[in-house]
């Protein structure tokens, strides 16, 4: 005992502790097992939960005292622990009791009625029934106020999560905590540039995608600063608290195995026109794909009609060489000046559909768990193998996790959990607008006469490895060549986990120390073959990404009961050390084709590196008071010291303090409410959270640039640093009510919050005429208000049949009340085509505006909103930025249903997002190129643009309707022109069938002489959607400038519809 703070001692003592383990089954009065009953050893924090079969298992320090059993809808029961290892309990139904336990900050389990803020949870089934490859996608639609947007590059893409909308100008990422220790949810992109040369940006996934659903016991969402004050600065955007499964659920060896298999298909593909083929002004003939023929340097579909018997020389038409052998028209390196034999000019309505493969995803999980005399363990292995619908794109992930609990002595509890994850992919496809994204040559610039199948053989004969074969050689690469030769692979090792020790100094005072780490090391290889358009002699880049965060904390807890008053006080401290490194070495030309090594470089190797280090020290305290079990009050305070606010000369601004207070009042405990109300609780809370910034914002630096003749060059960084940075602050007020009717058959949880984020730390864009493009400042105020309603309904509840449904409704408005600069709008981000200022969607905010407002340009309109046209019937560009709309939804509604009939179950989840807009690059480019269905209407007499002509003067305008026709090509190319985004937006509203499952459970099986259960189900994800746009999934994320941009569809790949099977067996 005297070495209590010496960690090794904790372990040494594992040898000699005496313990009692108790298990049993909890049933209702019909003998039906009750899952998820909370089992708590009275007077301790020790507890467990029953499994699906009503079984529980708990380890106690001694065989004394009582076990308390509680579950929603049942009367709480205490059972004395006698000298028995098995206690079976029958619980009585009771609508009056409501003591379910949720996980809150610091992993503290608390009864919901005590909480002055809302915490919403998902259990194992909630995240594992229909698993998705990216963990975040498992949460979509299931939690009020939580918004998930999936990435656009197939399996392995990042998903973006926000909780209660976006209120910060710079960082809206929630914190992820696994078993009490933060893990990163970073997305680190390769180094790239905006120009049409070099490597494009690639999405290698987000950190939290690797959380393994099969290892999760519970996910709790702490939605705002009120719930999360104690996690510190990073919690201001909410916290996803994940608790992994432990081994305590089974006595003896428990084995569970489950397998899921999905078939993936393209969820939605662009709606193409199939009447006109490649060319311009109705003419086309292929010669060399470089402009040597008729319009063969461009790939617009403004060419001749398809399917009318035209014979046209094409890239896949035959050419007979002098030796009699036949090659393809596109094999331009093999012949010169020979005639290409024309072939029929036909439509290919399914060419893109045929391009996409049928994807598969296998997820297998095997877990063994056991309790033994002084502890328990769980070991789990998960294997995920996914082949994307995008040819050659895949993701493999293996997860090994272990959780260990020791009770070496009566008073010492040691817990450890660790996960090792290896993820790898042979190819992550490039993002955004440009020739490395296959959608560039398949959708925007893929002519409708193109038979994609004929591109599969992508080398010119005899020139394998050096010269690709394609339908065009100006701007485009053969899409198969891109996907199979120009691969962006990665291999990532990651370990996260922690170990903690809790010691009961007295029965009222406990001390806990805990330390954990999130460590990952990733190697990426970007290969570019010879004859790539951006890399004529190939290219290669190696990108290393390293991340390590160590958190160490201690916590002292004192709890006591005085008559009617319960007191629980904790003080704790935390140190976080974070180190991140990203380094890319590249060559933009290779000596020998096919060898992807830096030693094969034919040009000087360029190196980009960035290392960052950060430490935050914290000290905090919590006091929880409860009076007569109906009034509860929490007070918290935390002080952080962040290294990111230090300068090399001063640490003056590094310390900041933030408090919170919350309370709850259980109305139904003190007054007689009408019979129909079974429970009513009111709650309120106020909290503040400070927020620091990224390292190195306080001092300027010089940055290495392209060397000249091997000699170094340096340029000043473009950002003006700020040595006087203060922390940001968010103050939040939240009120809510939890009201339940009809013995809890109907319940509502309503929250309203109002938060103000001030003194935001942002890189304020400034005019380059100052010599700089950004200035780091504190400033701005954003007010974020919202309403969340969680409704639970149990319309039917009989012995055999139960229908359970949950509605999650949320709405959020983040309004800008003040900006850091004097006037004008603040640019938070943008999505740009190459480096063209005019082809840019800006995310800007102005006072009174909302975060998520998108700005772009359009064509001149009069005060009636009619387009004002020129005398030739053409639109007039209006280069002033105008608000296009906001990408955030007006509201989100998730509707989850679960039906159980005897051994059958059926579940489905609808996800409705209403409002918001989306700027579409596919719409802009695909229509300018004449590829999409919108451009199928091409009358010979031309098209008269809708609009007016001004026949008066500028001051006294007289508007008359336009009567001048222009050619269809000219009309569409102008209307959808990419320099003007206004005509290229869609509403982003959608209603999706997000998830579906039908299952059957075989109980009480006897397999290998063991009791076992087996469950089989048919599952599906993203089955259908109603939405305005006919071309793509309205859930979109674009990538630009090392970040994600909402509200922009930037040449996205098709998302997937998944249908599959799942089987799970438990021994």
């Amino acid at each position, binding site marked *: 005992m005297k*070495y209590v*703070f*010496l*960690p090794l*001692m904790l372990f*040494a*003592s594992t*040898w000699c502790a005496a313990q009692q383990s108790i298990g049993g089954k909890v049933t209702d009065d019909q003998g039906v097992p009750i899952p998820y009953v909370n089992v708590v050893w009275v007077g301790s924090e020790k507890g467990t939960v029953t499994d699906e079969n009503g079984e529980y298992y708990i380890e106690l320090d001694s065989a004394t005292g009582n076990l308390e059993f509680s579950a929603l809808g049942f009367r709480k029961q205490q059972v004395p622990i006698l000298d028995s290892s098995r206690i079976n309990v029958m619980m009585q139904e009771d609508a009056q009791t409501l003591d379910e336990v949720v996980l809150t900050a610091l992993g503290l389990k608390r009864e919901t009625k005590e909480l002055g803020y809302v915490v919403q949870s998902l259990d194992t089934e909630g995240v594992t029934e229909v698993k998705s490859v990216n963990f975040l996608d498992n949460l979509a639609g299931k939690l009020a106020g939580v918004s998930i947007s999936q990435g656009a590059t197939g399996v392995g893409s990042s998903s973006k999560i926000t909780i209660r909308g976006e209120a910060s100008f710079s960082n809206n990422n929630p914190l992820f905590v696994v078993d009490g220790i933060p893990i990163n949810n970073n997305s680190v992109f390769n180094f790239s540039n905006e120009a*049409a*040369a070099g490597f494009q940006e690639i999405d290698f996934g987000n950190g939290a995608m690797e959380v393994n659903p099969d290892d999760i016991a519970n996910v709790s969402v702490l939605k705002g600063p009120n719930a999360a004050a104690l996690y510190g600065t990073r919690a201001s955007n909410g916290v996803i608290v994940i608790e992994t499964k432990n081994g305590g659920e089974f006595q003896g060896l428990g084995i569970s195995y489950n397998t899921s298999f999905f078939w993936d298909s393209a969820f939605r593909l662009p709606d193409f026109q199939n009447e006109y083929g490649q060319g*311009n*002004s109705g*003419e086309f003939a292929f010669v060399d794909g470089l*402009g*040597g023929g*008729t319009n063969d340097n461009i790939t617009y579909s403004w060419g001749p009609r398809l399917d009318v018997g035209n014979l046209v020389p094409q890239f896949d038409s035959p050419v007979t060489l002098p030796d009699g052998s036949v090659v393809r028209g596109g094999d331009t390196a093999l012949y010169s000046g020979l005639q290409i034999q024309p072939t029929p000019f036909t439509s290919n309505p399914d060419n893109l559909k045929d391009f996409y493969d049928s994807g598969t995803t296998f997820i297998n999980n095997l877990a063994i768990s056991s309790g033994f005399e002084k502890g328990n363990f769980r070991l789990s292995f998960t294997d995920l193998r996914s082949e994307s619908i995008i040819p050659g794109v895949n993701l493999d992930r293996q997860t090994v996790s272990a959780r260990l609990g020791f009770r070496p002595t009566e008073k010492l509890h040691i817990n*450890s959990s660790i996960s090792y994850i290896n993820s790898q992919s042979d190819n992550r496809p490039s993002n955004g607008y440009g020739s490395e994204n296959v959608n560039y040559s398949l959708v925007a610039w893929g002519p409708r006469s193109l038979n994609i199948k004929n591109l599969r053989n992508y080398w010119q004969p005899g020139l394998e490895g050096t010269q690709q074969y394609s339908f065009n*050689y*100006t*701007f485009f690469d053969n899409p198969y060549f891109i996907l199979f030769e120009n691969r962006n692979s990665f291999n990532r090792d990651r370990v996260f986990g922690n170990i903690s020790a809790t010691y009961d*100094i007295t029965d009222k005072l406990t001390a806990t120390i805990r330390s954990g*780490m999130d460590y990952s090391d990733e190697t990426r290889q970007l290969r570019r073959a010879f004859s790539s*358009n951006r890399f004529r002699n190939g290219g290669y880049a190696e990108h290393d990404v390293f991340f390590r965060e*160590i958190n160490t904390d201690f916590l002292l807890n004192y709890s006591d009961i005085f008559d009617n008053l319960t007191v629980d006080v904790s003080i704790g401290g935390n140190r976080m050390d974070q180190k991140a490194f990203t380094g890319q070495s590249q060559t*933009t*030309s290779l000596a020998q084709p096919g060898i992807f090594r830096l030693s094969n470089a034919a*040009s*000087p190797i360029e190196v980009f590196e960035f290392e960052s280090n*950060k*430490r935050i*020290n914290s000290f905090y305290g919590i006091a929880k008071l409860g009076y007569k079990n109906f009034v509860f009050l929490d007070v918290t305070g935390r*002080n952080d*010291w962040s*290294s*990111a606010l*230090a300068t090399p000369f001063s*640490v003056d601004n590094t310390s900041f303090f933030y408090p919170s207070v919350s309370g709850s009042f259980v109305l139904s405990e003190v007054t007689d409410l009408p019979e129909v109300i079974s429970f009513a609780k009111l709650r309120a809370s106020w909290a503040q959270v400070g927020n620091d910034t990224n390292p*190195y914002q306080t*001092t*300027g630096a*010089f940055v290495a*640039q392209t060397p*000249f*003749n091997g*000699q170094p060059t340096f*340029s000043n960084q473009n950002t*003006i640093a700020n040595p006087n940075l203060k922390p940001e602050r968010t103050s939040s007020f939240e009120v809510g009510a939890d009201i339940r009717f009809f013995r809890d058959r109907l319940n509502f949880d309503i929250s309203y919050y109002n938060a103000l984020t001030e003194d935001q730390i942002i890189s304020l864009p400034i*005019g*380059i*005429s*100052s010599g*700089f493009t950004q*200035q780091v400042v504190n400033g701005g105020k954003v007010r974020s208000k919202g309403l969340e309603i969680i409704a639970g309904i149990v319309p039917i509840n009989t012995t055999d049949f139960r229908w359970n449904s949950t509605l999650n409704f949320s709405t959020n408005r983040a309004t800008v009340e003040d900006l850091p600069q004097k006037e004008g*709008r603040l*640019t938070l981000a943008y999505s740009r085509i190459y480096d063209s*200022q*005019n082809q840019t969607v800006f995310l800007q905010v102005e006072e009174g505006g909302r975060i998520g407002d998108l700005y772009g340009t359009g064509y001149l309109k009069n005060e009636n909103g009619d387009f004002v046209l020129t005398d030739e019937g053409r639109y007039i560009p209006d*280069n002033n930025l105008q608000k296009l709309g906001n990408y955030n939804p007006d509201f989100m509604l998730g509707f989850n249903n679960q039906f159980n009939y005897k051994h059958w179950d059926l579940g489905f989840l609808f996800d409705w997002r209403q409002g918001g807009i989306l700027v579409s690059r596919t719409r802009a480019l695909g229509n300018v190129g004449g590829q999409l269905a919108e451009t199928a209407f091409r009358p010979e007499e031309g098209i008269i643009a809708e609009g007016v002509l001004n026949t008066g003067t500028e001051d006294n305008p007289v508007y008359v309707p336009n009567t001048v026709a222009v050619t269809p*090509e000219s009309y569409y190319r102008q209307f959808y022109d990419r*320099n003007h985004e206004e005509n290229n937006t869609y509403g982003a509203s959608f209603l999706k069938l997000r998830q579906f499952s039908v299952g059957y459970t075989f109980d009480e099986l006897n397999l290998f002489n063991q009791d076992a259960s087996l469950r089989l189900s048919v599952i599906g994800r993203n089955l259908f959607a109603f939405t305005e746009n006919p071309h793509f999934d309205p859930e979109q994320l674009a990538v630009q400038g090392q970040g994600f941009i909402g509200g922009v569809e930037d040449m996205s790949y098709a998302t997937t519809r998944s249908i599959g099977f799942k089987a799970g067996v438990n021994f």
Partner: protein
Amino acid sequence: MKRLLPLSGEGGIQRSDDDERGRTQASDQTLNHLLVRLLWAFPLPKSFVQFGRWLGLDPFRIAILQSRMQSTFPCQGKEQKSSNLIENLQHEKSSPNPSRGGGLYPNQNLIHTKNPNQNKRILPLLRRGPGRGLLAMASIFLVLSCTEDFKEINTNPNAPVSVQPSLLLRQVIYDYGEQMSYEGFTAGNLLGQYTTALDFNLFDRHNLKSPQLGGNPWPILYRNLRDNENILNQSLENETFAVYEGPVRILKAYMAATLTDLFGDVPYSDAFKGKELTVTPTYDSQEDIYLGEGGILDNLDKGISAIANYSGTIPLEGDILFEGNLENWVRFANSLKIKYLLRISDKVDVSADLQAIITEDAPYIFTNDFNAAFNFTDGEPNNFRLARLRIGDFNNFVLSETMFVILTDLNDPRISTLFRPFSNSNSGEFNGLLNGIDASQTSIALADFSLAGTIFRENTGRLDANFMTSWETLFLLAEAAQRGLISEDAEQLYNRAVAQAFRYWQVELPIEYITEDAAFENGNPLENIITQKWIANIINGYEGWVEYRRTGFPELKTISASLNNDLIPVRMPYPAEEEALNSVNYADAAAKTDGNSINVKVWWQAP
């Protein structure tokens, strides 16, 4: 429980202890060994080191990590940190220490505590018995609130806070030359009607706010003016760097002139002072920028005298134009002076100043050997940027009708260097296309028009980034002489200039070119001078177009589908970001240019 106590006496989870004792206490240690592995993350700092090693981190990282850990566990360890680090690293290098068991951790000695005081500091605290547990807690708290290390942690390890002026000078010259040559090809050549763009050509159709490639010189100029100002400040503040003053003043004059010639009134005296927190600079009039103190002509004079007065021995480094030859900088300055005096000659009587340069025999660039230029290379990364872009980007630019007519009328052989025969031609002919087509109305066969020459893509090692040349200087002097601003022989200057321009483009000058086709007196001599200069100035930024605006030569054509009412623009528009981010000052400047119109002349243009 007590059995393992001796271990703790050694300072907690020490892998080395574990291994050493493992030989004698094997049975007890087996599980312990396992535990240590599991204990990778336990809050004693050294276990992190162990864990890192377990994961195969390289020893260097670990040494640093370890030294950080040691130094930061108790705050007062600070003063020992550097020595720890060095000691660890030295140890790492010199002693693999094979006697310590090797195995999983070949450099075990690293983990072993190197600093005996370290143990003394921690262990007594832990040994004092149960009553001191809280004290230990409190001491952890004290550690937590310790911020002294923050200064070091938040010092950027990636980039220096200050650099030698030579590194900046090389950057300014290279970046300006590289970027403005690219601008020249992709945008300047369109405005100057050397080439035309087939598609994605709103800029070529004179919607100058919608460039596709290039066409946005504003940030290039300001960024380089900023870095240049940095050198200037260093040279004025630090005697050691005094040699840089002259060259950077000359560069400042040069870049400021490029800027104001394109845009007119621009932020200048207030500009690139963001570090002093002037982030919304006011605009200066072009007249002030040319003539005012600290302006173009002033900086040229000051630059020349700074070089003349420089008596130090420290050489100029980073000078990729002249390899540190200061005399060549003076030539460069005088050539620029001639250029800028002539540029404002419609507004200001510059003849005395020009004549003075001649009379005083001031050195200027009179042969290609003294050109202010640097070579592109054939290979990356210093090749011309068009060599790196996709072929489609390059093929989008073809010979302009304007250039085609001028070169063919003159029988100018340079056409074969600057352009290629069109691919449908059977006999090596060239063909040009009128600028500014509407690609949606007209179907253009690329094969019927000439692409730019191989010097701009395949053989960019032959190409220069051009700041100032002998031929440009001589053409300027020829013009001055022709206009009677100086008393020199205009024809002789012209002939020398033409000869050097041919040499610059590596084309042999046919004798009849000077005697017949492009003879000085064949037509309007002034037009001949400017036209010859215009030809040679291809890809030299926007120079051809700027001089057209001043002189009206060569006569540019009305483009086919103008988006500017068939007017040839006479200035570049301020960029949109200036409107958004420097709005008050922009509004002022916009008011003076009819709402940022591209048809409002700048000050030096004849009314």
